[in-house]
């Protein structure tokens, strides 16, 4: 495909997506209920948020080669800081967002400065430890702020009315779509900028970058903070979509899910990561529905139990992909496109 054709397809696709809330028909099997109904829109919006989140994770993992196990912490920062400011302190939404923005710049700056003293696997373990500290903090419910294990429902009198209620799901859907597009553009711009090229050079050979007179530490810190900040933005939209904060987003399991998304879609490509995030969230949601169907429930226990656990199926899929399809779904798709393109002589 020439760049112009690709751009046209992209724009048409986005317009169709943006017009989706107006659609009245349904696609049985893929989605329950009408395509423009609140349930489907909410699921799709969640898919967009996770696509964007996977993209932010791919920035550090795929482009700089930093295997961070603490990305959930920054997503959770977006979720919890906004939720606390709006619900507990009754701040207006813009003020809450400003506070969230400041926190989600300062926190990764400090933690990243410490974590990046280590490399490779020790780095992974340290980020994991900090994320765990965040998870403990949220679970302990300090000063009654986070709501502990019960989570924190987004409430308060300051939220604009167009963000609340089932009938306004379409607004949230558009916000999520806009988030995905903006983050994609920022990430695309970042990885194609001069610092972005240094990131990829660090991934390939960090010592060589240092030999060239550049300071890898500062570049890595820059990527870390950018990725964390964008992840917090995803957290804010997630909070609005879910109408509350739940402690699950702070756990190490959540970061591992992000890792699965990125590897599922293809490490080191932007659209691959988005694809992985969207597919993962969709499967996670739909596999629960699958396990409740009568066909699965009628199976003997030895088959029914594994099929009822979405994480089991996703974990196995993940192992198979790592072992046999190193490029992920995105890589496989691209190879297929290249292959068919070659045989057609295009």
């Amino acid at each position: 495909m020439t760049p112009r054709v690709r751009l046209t397809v992209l724009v048409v696709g986005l317009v169709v997506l943006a017009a989706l809330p107006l659609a009245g028909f349904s696609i049985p099997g893929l989605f329950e209920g009408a395509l423009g109904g609140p349930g489907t829109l909410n699921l799709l919006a969640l898919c967009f948020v996770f696509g964007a989140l996977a993209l932010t994770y791919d920035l550090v993992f795929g482009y700089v080669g930093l295997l961070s196990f603490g990305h959930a912490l920054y997503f959770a920062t977006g979720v919890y800081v906004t939720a606390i400011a709006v619900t507990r302190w009754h701040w207006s939404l813009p003020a809450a967002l400003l506070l969230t923005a400041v926190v989600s710049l300062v926190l990764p700056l400090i933690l990243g400065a410490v974590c990046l003293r280590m490399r490779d696997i020790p780095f992974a373990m340290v980020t994991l430890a900090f994320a765990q500290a965040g998870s403990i903090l949220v679970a302990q419910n300090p000063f009654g702020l986070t709501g502990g294990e019960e989570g924190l429902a987004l409430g308060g009198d300051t939220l604009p009315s167009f963000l609340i209620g089932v009938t306004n799901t379409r607004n949230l859907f558009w916000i999520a779509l806009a988030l995905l597009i903006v983050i994609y553009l920022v990430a695309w711009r970042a990885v194609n900028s001069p610092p972005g090229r240094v990131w990829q050079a660090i991934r390939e050979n960090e010592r060589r970058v240092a030999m060239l007179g550049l300071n890898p530490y500062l570049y890595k810190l820059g990527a870390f903070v950018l990725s964390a900040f964008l992840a917090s933005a995803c957290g804010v939209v997630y909070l609005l979509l879910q109408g509350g904060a739940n402690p699950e987003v702070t756990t190490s399991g959540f970061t591992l899910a992000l890792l699965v998304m990125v590897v599922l879609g293809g490490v080191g490509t932007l659209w691959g990561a988005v694809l992985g995030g969207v597919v993962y969230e969709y499967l996670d949601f739909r596999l629960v529905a699958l396990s409740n169907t009568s066909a699965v429930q009628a199976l003997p226990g030895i088959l029914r139990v594994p099929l009822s656990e979405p994480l089991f199926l996703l974990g196995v899929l993940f192992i198979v992909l790592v072992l046999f399809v190193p490029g992920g779904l995105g890589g496989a798709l691209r190879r297929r496109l290249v292959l068919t393109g070659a045989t057609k002589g295009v």
Partner: protein
Amino acid sequence: MTTIALLLITGLGLGALYFLIAAGLSLIWGLMRVLNFAHGAFFTVAAYAGWSASGLVGGASPELQWLVAVAVAVVVGGAFATLTEVVLIRPLYARHVGQVLVTVGLALATISLVQGGFGSDPKRLALPAWMTGTTTIVGANIPNTRLLVIAFALAVFALLIFFLRRTRFGLIVRAGVENRAMVQALGIDVQRAFTLVFAIGGMAAGLAGILAGTYYGTIDPGRGTSMLIFAFIVVIIGGLGSVTGSAVAAIVVGVLQQFLNFYGAAGVGDFSVVLLLAIVLLVRPGGFSGAST
């Protein structure tokens, strides 16, 4: 004084559990450079296997039931780990990140399977009567399970040190931690040592799984993952690849956690452990034992 003795010994018990998990992790990392996320899965699967086995011999005396549970947990932990190394890790020797990812996938899949099969509610482990009692040490009533766990960890520590210092395979493992390429260049099959450290690590993790069940009285699917994170911290503080370092760090972390959780608010101890990690990293990036990575 009694409180301090109680906290100290409880903290040592917790440290003993951390050590059992961390020792295997540290050896595996030292020799193979694999961050083994599946260690929590070995822990959990072995604990449930032990619990099921102790249920199967339900008619026997509680002592025998408990011994069966321990034996089965150790064997299952070792077998599961060996299988993991041979089937999943071996094809990926050239891809370090791939190895980590595979263990992540295995951990997710296994733990959700256990949760699906046994439910997420805690299961009570049958214990002999004397274990639920207490022993008075300097005036404090110490639960016997704490002492038992510490004794097991000491025995495992002694065995590991004997294995590493006095046997031929131990020599290969130590040499491999120092310089793997050189060991291979001398014509020694390091792959067998890889399988061996996985088997040892899995057995220790399996033992930790059933001992954690003894320590807390119950087993549940989530405990392996949460203990694994503290074991990671222990491994880093102790210096990656060092069993003695892990032992020292496990004691420090376990005791610190107990004291601060008691004297501070709940959760302060867990939090300070992470803080301790940050401080150690800032002062000595290689951990206590100083081996730079």
